[in-house]
Structures are given as structure tokens and as C-alpha cells.
């Protein structure tokens, strides 16, 4: 990276971008391409999935002493490309009594895009105007029609596979060819069809065809969460930050934990950013004409709330008081099954791309249901690479079915018979997870904890988040559907179906890692912090390009929309600057 750094750093950058995930990466890509001198602040270390010192792809489980098991430092397993997690040493967050929130952070170039699921769904026309449809939440200040050209550009720039389906609220992208389904996915497509549950090829930002000279093509190792040495999947580090560096207009500062956005007391404009160098604990400052905040929805809200001054006593860009509010994560619930017809499988390489080859977009009409908004279903299964946890809990499974000779099999056991069970059950499990839309509510929020600071002395977030019956009933519906799907597939559901005492199996808020909404956009400065260009109503040279500006998030994973909106906001910055308005 240093080879490409600006040699003589300006005293005042054209733009300072805080955060290098999807939103920050797209901003530095667009702005440096337009010729702006950009300073990128990243709280974590450098990362490049093609640099041998970071590579975990194609490693075998036995190369890890814990055989790929998770640790506090790698919550998704020893090979996962996320440095950080739910619980980072010296960087706490708190939750208000009686509420829950779990916050996943990655401290590295590219942020969480290095390990994400690459599920790249456009929001549909209805997803931008939910209040007009069901009266809940708020409409966006922009329509699908305004975002669509940017989705198109993101599709072409980054690449996404899928199939043209012409579904009204799941718009097609400009797709690369989709991989063929795996065996269990074909069987699910067949049985789901009988249930009327739409099940179509997934839409992932993984290159099944070459799109440019900088990136290779998928070689089907099923390990996108380890980040790709061939840059065949999208991560902000490899597909946005790297090309931005090559313009020589980018100056990246790693280990820079932003503490405060500085403003001019007279003009009220942002003038720079104070950050802590996490290696030396020194406080440093960079100056810029424009600040783009993309530190992640909650981190960005925290930074604004911590940027208090006489002129901005409620925090920066917060005269409306909405900063931190309307926090919402996707709903999630899951179930798995044993599928007897998938026992004793013929062995072959079934890795495929990293993740699901088929999924079920929302297929029902809420008018006939007792909850608002929808969910999609993701599926997993197959003969995947064994690792820590393989065969775990077999004592709850191997007594369910007779042995190969048709004799009753006792649960548990040991020895030759048990060893044979593991072989027979390999590839016979199928799982599914619902990912749904929660309602953005004012009373689900993050705020500054009055008593707690992190190791850098920066006040931390306190979360206040509770699910409502909207989400609980949605999760109940998910579980009812999972059982139908499993039975129709001929499977045996595993574990207990969660009841009302367990919120119908709803994941805790934050656990789906789609948290959005904390600095929402809108036309009314009294009820929103940003205008429809993601520009602060109160501070015209401050923009937010992560998921904080989201008014709602559909049942679609948020990354593709972060990218499209960041591109749109960045283009707007360039136009405004050229027109002399910034």
C-alpha cells in the first residue's frame, strides 16, 4: 500500500473518509477517481487477501491447532477474515437494563466486507416507501427509480451473479451466470415448489466470469468468508481501496481510531478529524474540506454524538435529535434437519461458491398475515469441509433412524458402529435461516454511555433495543415455514421449535450484523439528520455513506444498497464541489 501513497501529503485534504468498509471504500474509489486528494482513516490494520501473510484460504482444518474453531478473536472460526468480533479488548459497549444488542466490528482495511456472505440484493420499489404501504416507520426521501442507475453501475463495477426473475419487489441486477444448485438445493427447489415457496438462484457478488484485469474468477472453494486470493469475491479492501490507492490520490492511515469530527465554531463547517493512533495512543489531527463518515452505522452515530461543541451541544448534525435512533437489525431465526434420503451419499467435490446457490425471496402478501414486512430464506447443507464441531451432538441424531441393516439404532454409542454413523450422516444435514425486515423505531437506539469510556478515552455506546410483536410474529411464521419446508423435503427437524418464551427463536438484535438506521436521511430536518444526498442538514460539508442513513432496510442484506448510495453520494460531492457549492 505504501508504494501508492501520496508522497507529499497536503496540509488540508479535499476529503477525509472515516472507515474503509463498503460505504467508505466506495467513497474513496469514486472520489480519488475524480481527482480528489483523499485521506482514509481506518481504525484497524492493513489487509489484503492476496498477500500471503494474511491468507487463510485453502488452508486445511488441521493447519489450525483448534481445527478452525472460533475464538473470541475470530468468532466465525479460525480461518474467517474478520479481525475483531463481538467483544474487542479495550473497546466495550454497554446495553441498558432489560435490553439486548450485540455489536460486531472488524478492525481492518475493508472492514466487515472481507468476510461477509456476499448476498447482494437490491432493495425493491416497495422497500423505499413502506410507510405509504403499511403506515409503519417512514418512507425514504428517494425512490427505487433514483437509485436504480447506481445499482446498475455497482453491478457492472463489482459483479453479481443471479438470474432474471422479474419479481416485482426483488429487482434483477445485471447478472453474471449463476452457479448450478447443489443436490440439497435442487431437492429444496423441487419440494418448495409444491409449497408455493419461490426458490431461485442466489444473488452473490462473486465473479463467475472475468470482468476486468484486476480480478480473477471464482474457483469454487466455498470459502468467501476467508476472503479471496484471486479477488473473485467483493471486498472493499481488494475491489475499492486497492484501485483507489493506485490513483495516487489516496492517503490511508491505519490504526486511526476517530474520536471527534472537528468544526469551525464560526461557520459550523467540518474542518477535520481528531483520531487516536492506536499503536502509540497519541492524539492526531487531519484537516479536510469535506468529511465523509462511513465508520459503520453505530460507530458513525457514536462519532457524531461524541463531536459536541458549543455550537452543536447535542452532537454534530443532531439538531433533530435523531442520531442514534431508529437503529434496526434484520430479524433472524433458523432451523436444521436431517434428511434421510441424503444419507450414504456418493462423494464428489460439492464446495461451489462461498454460500448458498439458491434462496427464497419473500413470497407472501402481508395483508393476509399477522405481521408487517417480509423475510427471505437462506439455505445451507452439503458435503462441506470437516472442521471443529464436525459430528458434534451425534448422540441426538443417530438414534432417530435404523442402521444400514434396518435394525433400530441406539442414540450415542462408540466404536466401529459410531464411526460408520459419522460417514453415513456426512452431507445429510440441511439448514435454513430467515432474514427479515424489522420496523425502525424511535425507541430502539444507541446513545453515549455517561459512565464508560474505551481504552482510548472515547465515550462508548449504550444500546437500548427490544424486539416488538411485529418481529416476534415474523419469527413465529419463519419457524412454521421451516417445519413445512423440512417435512416437504422428507427431513426430520432437529432441536426444539422455539416458543413464545424464547421470542420464537429470534436472534438477539445485532446478531445478524445488518444494523442500520442511526443517522437517517429525510426531507424534513426536524425528523432526519441527512438530506436525500446523505449530506448533513446541519453541516453541509459532512456526508454519511455507510448504512446509518437507511430509513428502513427491507428483508434485503444492506451491502448492495450501501454501495449504490455511497456511489450516488460521492458523485454528488464531486458535482457540488465542481459547481463551487462545497
Amino acid at each position, binding site marked *: 500500500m505504501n508504494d501508492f501513497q501520496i508522497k507529499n501529503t497536503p496540509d488540508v485534504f479535499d476529503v477525509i473518509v472515516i472507515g474503509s468498509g463498503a460505504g467508505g471504500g466506495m467513497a474513496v474509489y469514486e472520489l480519488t477517481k475524480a481527482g480528489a486528494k483523499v485521506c482514509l482513516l481506518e481504525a484497524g490494520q492493513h489487509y489484503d487477501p492476496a498477500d500471503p501473510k494474511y491468507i487463510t484460504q485453502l488452508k486445511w482444518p488441521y493447519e489450525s491447532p483448534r481445527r478452525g474453531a472460533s475464538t473470541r478473536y475470530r468468532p466465525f472460526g479460525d480461518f474467517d477474515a474478520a479481525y475483531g468480533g463481538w467483544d474487542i479488548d479495550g473497546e466495550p459497549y454497554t446495553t441498558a437494563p432489560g435490553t439486548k444488542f450485540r455489536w460486531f466490528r472488524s478492525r481492518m482495511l475493508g472492514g466487515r466486507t472481507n468476510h461477509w456472505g456476499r448476498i447482494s440484493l437490491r432493495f425493491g420499489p416497495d422497500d423505499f416507501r413502506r410507510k405509504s404501504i403499511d403506515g409503519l416507520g417512514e418512507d425514504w426521501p428517494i425512490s427505487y427509480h433514483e437509485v436504480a442507475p447506481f445499482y446498475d453501475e455497482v453491478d457492472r463495477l463489482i459483479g453479481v451473479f443471479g438470474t432474471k426473475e422479474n419479481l416485482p419487489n426483488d429487482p434483477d441486477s445485471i447478472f453474471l451466470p449463476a452457479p448450478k444448485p447443489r443436490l440439497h438445493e435442487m431437492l429444496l427447489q423441487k419440494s418448495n415448489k409444491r409449497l408455493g415457496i419461490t426458490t431461485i438462484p442466489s444473488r452473490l457478488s462473486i465473479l463467475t466470469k472475468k470482468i476486468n484485469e484486476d480480478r480473477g474468477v471464482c474457483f469454487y472453494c466455498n470459502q468467501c468468508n476467508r476472503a479471496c486470493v484471486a479477488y473473485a469475491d467483493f471486498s472493499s479492501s481488494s475491489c475499492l481501496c486497492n484501485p483507489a490507492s493506485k490513483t495516487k490520490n489516496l492517503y490511508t492511515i491505519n490504526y486511526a481510531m476517530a474520536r471527534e469530527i472537528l468544526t469551525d465554531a464560526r461557520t459550523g463547517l467540518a474542518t477535520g478529524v481528531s483520531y487516536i493512533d492506536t499503536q502509540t495512543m497519541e492524539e492526531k489531527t487531519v484537516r479536510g474540506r469535506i468529511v465523509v463518515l462511513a465508520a459503520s452505522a453505530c460507530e458513525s452515530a457514536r462519532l457524531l454524538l461524541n463531536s459536541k461543541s458549543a455550537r452543536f451541544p447535542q452532537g454534530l448534525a443532531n439538531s433533530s435529535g435523531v442520531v442514534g435512533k431508529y437503529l434496526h437489525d434484520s430479524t433472524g431465526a433458523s432451523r436444521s434437519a436431517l434428511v434421510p434420503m441424503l444419507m450414504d451419499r456418493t462423494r*464428489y467435490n460439492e464446495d461451489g461458491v462461498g454460500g448458498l446457490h439458491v434462496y427464497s425471496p419473500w413470497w407472501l402478501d402481508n395483508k393476509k398475515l399477522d405481521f408487517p414486512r417480509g423475510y427471505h430464506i437462506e439455505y445451507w447443507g452439503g458435503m462441506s469441509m470437516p472442521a471443529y464441531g464436525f459430528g458434534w451432538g451425534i448422540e441426538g441424531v443417530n438414534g432417530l433412524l435404523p442402521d444400514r441393516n434396518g435394525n433400530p439404532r441406539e442414540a450415542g454409542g462408540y466404536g466401529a458402529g459410531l464411526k460408520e454413523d459419522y460417514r453415513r450422516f456426512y452431507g445429510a444435514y440441511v439448514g435454513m435461516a430467515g432474514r427479515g425486515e424489522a420496523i425502525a423505531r424511535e425507541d430502539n437506539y444507541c446513545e453515549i454511555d455517561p459512565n464508560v469510556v474505551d481504552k482510548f478515552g472515547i465515550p462508548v455506546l449504550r444500546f437500548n433495543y427490544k424486539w416488538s410483536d411485529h418481529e416476534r410474529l415474523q419469527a413465529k411464521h419463519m419457524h412454521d415455514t421451516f417445519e413445512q419446508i423440512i417435512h416437504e423435503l422428507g427431513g426430520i427437524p432437529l432441536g426444539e421449535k422455539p416458543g413464545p418464551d424464547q421470542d420464537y427463536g429470534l436472534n438477539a438484535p445485532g446478531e445478524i450484523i445488518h444494523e442500520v438506521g442511526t443517522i437517517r436521511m429525510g426531507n424534513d430536518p426536524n425528523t432526519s439528520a441527512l438530506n436525500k444526498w446523505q449530506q448533513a442538514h446541519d453541516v453541509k460539508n459532512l456526508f454519511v455513506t455507510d448504512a446509518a442513513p437507511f430509513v428502513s432496510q427491507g428483508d434485503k442484506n444492506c451491502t448492495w444498497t450501501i454501495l449504490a448510495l455511497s456511489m450516488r453520494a460521492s458523485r454528488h460531492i464531486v458535482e457540488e464541489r465542481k459547481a463551487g457549492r462545497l
Partner: protein
Amino acid sequence: MKRRKALQSIGLSSLGLVGLHPQIKAAELMPAPHPDAETGKKDPVFEQFGRTEYEAQRDARLFAEQFFTPHELKTISILADIIIPRDERSGSATDAGVPAFIEFMAKDRPEMQTPLRGGLAWIDNQSKKRFGTAFSDSTPAQRIEIVEDIAYPERGKPSMSQGIAFFSLMRNLTASGFWSSKIGIEDIGYMGNIPNMWDGPPKEVLEKYGLL
């Protein structure tokens, strides 16, 4: 010879070279089999994959520590091989390095230490009560007599419940360690983790499931 070295020596490229064809780069990443990976307790191979500085230090610290006593490790080895014995297709749990893996996991996840240490003591107490010897000093038939009482959760007598819980933990750890080893992966027939062209399931599989 490591795969990477092998590829270098036939003049393909070296890792990290700009402009390298990604598929070749991927092929280069294929690790060579490590002869000592199954047994080596302080195998340097474990330090070679994308660790952050802190993780590398932490793993090195864990490797330097010893949790189980030789007696406990002996009992673990006996139990692991009862759970996954050698058969005509592959080796046993100890052949696959399971005891070293369990030793590491006990240090990596301290919450497992008391259930494992306590379970090992429980099984020794059982053995002493029944046969007057520690589990590892009892005869193979005597060991199986105890295992029969704790290996089947639905059969188990109430007085055996703690032993059943321990044996389930041992079974699960043994399976994790065995099937994620080189021996276990070959046995289970996992054929991936290599650059591939996915084109759907083989025709005979589609035929078998009526999907053609």
C-alpha cells in the same frame, strides 16, 4: 517439498507476484501435507496461516503450557480410541492426533477444563470402585463395562448421568479432532478445498434422485 516450492521449481511463479494468474496463485496455496501435523504438539505449521500478531502470540503461549497430566492424557487416549477405533478404512483417534488436539482445546477454551478433568476423575473413581484400579490400569473388558454404562444417553441409569455427560463431551471432541484431521478428511471422502469448476452434481447422482 512444499507445494509452493514445487511450483516455483517448475517455473510457474512465486506467491504475491503482481499479475499472477489467480487460478495459479490459488493452486500454489494448496498446502503440502505436513507429516508432523497430526502429532506434533509445537508444530510450527500452526503459525503459518494468516494470524494476527496477537493470535500468533496467544497460540504460542498456549502451546507452551501443559494442562493435562500424563495420566490424564493416557486416559484421554484410551477413551478416544474406544470412541473412534482403527478399522479397515482408516486409523484411530490417536493415530489422528486427537489427544494433542484435546489438550490444545482445553487451554484454548478454559471452560472445558473442569468438565474434562472432572470427567476423567469420575471415570477413575468408577473404575476404582468397581475394579480397584484406575481406568487406564483396568483391563479392556473392564473399561468397556464402564463405557457401556455411559455411552448411551437414553439407556443410562440416573446414577451414571455425570459420566454420560462427560462421555458425550469426549465423543464430540474426539469426532471433531478425528474428522478434521488428514486421516479423517480422507476417510469421510471430502474432495474439495482445491480449485475446481463446479458444474452441478454428477449425472449419476441426478439420476439417482430423479433430478435429470
